[in-house]
């Protein structure tokens, strides 16, 4: 190695003033564009802020915030939704403790959001002191979960198992309850609504359609003709039909074929439609990942004597799925927003609840802008965190990528 006599140091980063001159005012066209852009942004922000704080009438939201969250879920049974939420926030805290920086921003944001919501001064009778206290417990539980995740020897797989248990317990036991039970009386899904339904359909849709889609993608490449042709026809049939049509088929036509007493719950029927639809798209996205794996990988695994099942599960799928994380998450974000379509089969999701609120009082009719903006904000927050989670996942799994 030749060592140069002069030790060179990296150039200093430019001062803010230099940066501004170089990037925003380098020539007169850029200067003009900068001034124009700043003006537009300034007026947009100022006008939106004055509208939101002075002109806008947020009463459709403040009058019935619980409607947006849980719909008509009986208020005397509301504690069940509360317990579900506490379980989730606690697990968010534990995930933060175990997976550290990958979950940290999400956990902190959730804690702050719930804390702010608890103390926000809204003059409304529906947000009782009990609800405010409940909201405050959530950030505390997040912190508690974090400490437990940090201090106890909890492994990532334990937390994942807990998530699975909780995510099954909430929609199958806690919220629906049982007929003839005094502790958890039956609450039919006809009164469920709002964000609860939106989350149920999208989390359920994502969690169930993913393994289904992966199996279809593998089936499409199978050497067994029956498996292969079933997969291809399922994928192509479902992808060739709009989601609305599938939802109608499941909610109307399926009911026609089944006897009245064995009728499947309408939310489950909608969920089935969503799962079928999403699985077909997942399958095609995963297939893209499978095709990107060089054939040498499979050959090397075969040459070692590995069985096909092991080749697929240990060599091909881990690499293929890592490649398609961005596409799959993109697909799940659109699935999350597409769940609003269940409104047309009579299920009141978040958007449906907003429409219902607008019809509550005659003076609400002109307040569509406020309601839809509020709903859009909620959708945006969730979607943003899904794409954020996708980036974190890529980073966590990207170690040693070629």
């Amino acid at each position, binding site marked *: 190695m030749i060592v140069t006599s002069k030790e060179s140091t990296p150039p200093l980063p430019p001062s803010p003033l230099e940066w501004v001159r170089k990037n925003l005012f380098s020539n007169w066209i850029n200067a003009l564009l900068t001034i124009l852009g700043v003006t537009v942004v300034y007026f947009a922000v100022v006008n939106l802020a004055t509208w939101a704080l002075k002109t806008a009438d947020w009463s459709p939201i403040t009058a019935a915030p619980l409607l947006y969250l849980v719909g008509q879920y009986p208020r005397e049974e509301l504690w069940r939704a509360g317990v579900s939420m506490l379980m989730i926030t606690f697990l968010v805290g534990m995930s933060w403790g175990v997976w550290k920086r990958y979950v940290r921003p999400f956990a902190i944001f959730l804690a702050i959001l719930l804390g702010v919501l608890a103390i926000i001064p809204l003059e409304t009778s529906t947000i009782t002191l009990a609800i405010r206290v409940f909201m405050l417990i959530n950030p505390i539980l997040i912190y508690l979960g974090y400490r437990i995740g940090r201090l106890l020897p909890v492994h990532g797989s334990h937390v994942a198992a807990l998530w699975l248990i909780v995510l099954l317990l909430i929609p199958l036991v806690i919220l629906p309850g049982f007929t003839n039970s005094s502790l958890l009386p039956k609450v039919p899904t006809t009164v469920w609504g709002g964000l609860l339904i939106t989350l149920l359909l999208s989390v359920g849709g994502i969690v169930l359609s993913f393994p289904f889609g992966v199996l279809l993608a593998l089936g499409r490449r199978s050497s067994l003709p029956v498996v292969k042709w079933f997969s291809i026809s399922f994928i192509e049939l479902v992808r060739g039909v709009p989601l609305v049509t599938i939802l109608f088929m499941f909610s109307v036509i399926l009911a026609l074929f089944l006897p009245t007493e064995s009728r499947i719950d309408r939310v489950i029927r909608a969920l089935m439609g969503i799962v079928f639809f999403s699985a077909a798209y997942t399958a095609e996205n995963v297939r893209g990942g499978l095709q990107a794996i060089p054939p040498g*990988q499979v050959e090397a695994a075969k*040459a070692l004597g590995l069985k096909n099942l092991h080749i697929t599960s240990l060599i091909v799928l881990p690499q293929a799925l*890592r490649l398609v994380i961005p596409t799959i998450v993109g697909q799940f974000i659109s699935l999350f927003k597409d769940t609003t379509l269940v409104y047309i089969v009579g299920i009141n999701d978040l958007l449906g609840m907003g429409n219902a609120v607008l019809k509550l009082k005659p003076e609400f009719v002109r307040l569509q802008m406020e309601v839809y903006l509020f709903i859009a904000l909620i959708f945006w927050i969730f979607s943003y965190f899904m794409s954020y989670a996708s980036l974190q996942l890529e980073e966590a799994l990207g170690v*040693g990528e070629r």
Partner: protein
Amino acid sequence: MSVNARSEDAMSDQVKADQPIIIARDVHKWFDNFQALKGISMEVKHGEVIVIFGPSGSGKSTFIRTLNRLEEHQRGTIIIDGIELSHDVRNIERVRSEIGMVFQQFNLFPHLTVLQNITLAPIWVRKWSKEKAEEVAMQLLERVGIPEQAQKFPGQLSGGQQQRVAIARALAMQPKIMLFDEPTSALDPEMIKEVLDVMVGLARSGMTMLVVTHEMGFARAVAHRMYFFDEGTIVESGTPDQIFKNPQENRTKLFLSQILEH
């Protein structure tokens, strides 16, 4: 080293050593209408080192890939250590676990560490405990000279190091036969030697090896027999001495003069 134990086994077992471990008779292979192998016959005894060379497209890679059934032959017979290769999947998996293979492009698993690459098959095919598999893997990494790279991912290694890991990965299954498919062709010149050194060591330890290569120095040093392939047939075979000093066929002479000029 536990890997040597097996080759010593093979060496001491002199009675068995006279029996060919690989028998290929009249092997034919078509890719659609293109005939890649036109009746290849070869017998390899325990501990023999065979070098196969020839122009590209001559069928030499295809032939060694039929031996562990990465390619299916359509006519003829292949018997590996007494097991005939047929459509029986169980037989194929058994034969494959007895044959190690090293590829031109290494084909390491990029999502696994070096150690995981090596222990994968012993754990899932041989059902060894993780501890035992890792112990053997570390011995093998020692043997190929890169124990300090165990926790790295393949993408962080040089080509020569990757190929040495690939050799260790194949050896971890304690195979009776090792196949090398142009193991140095994808390497930068300065890394060829480190891989060839490992292969020479392996040959001297008594491993049965079939090597497709144009590294004639390697052939001279350790090969027992050499086969010259062209257009899907064996044109000529013999000891390295015969092939280098007194080739019988014009095609062999021409090819040797082309590759030895460099």
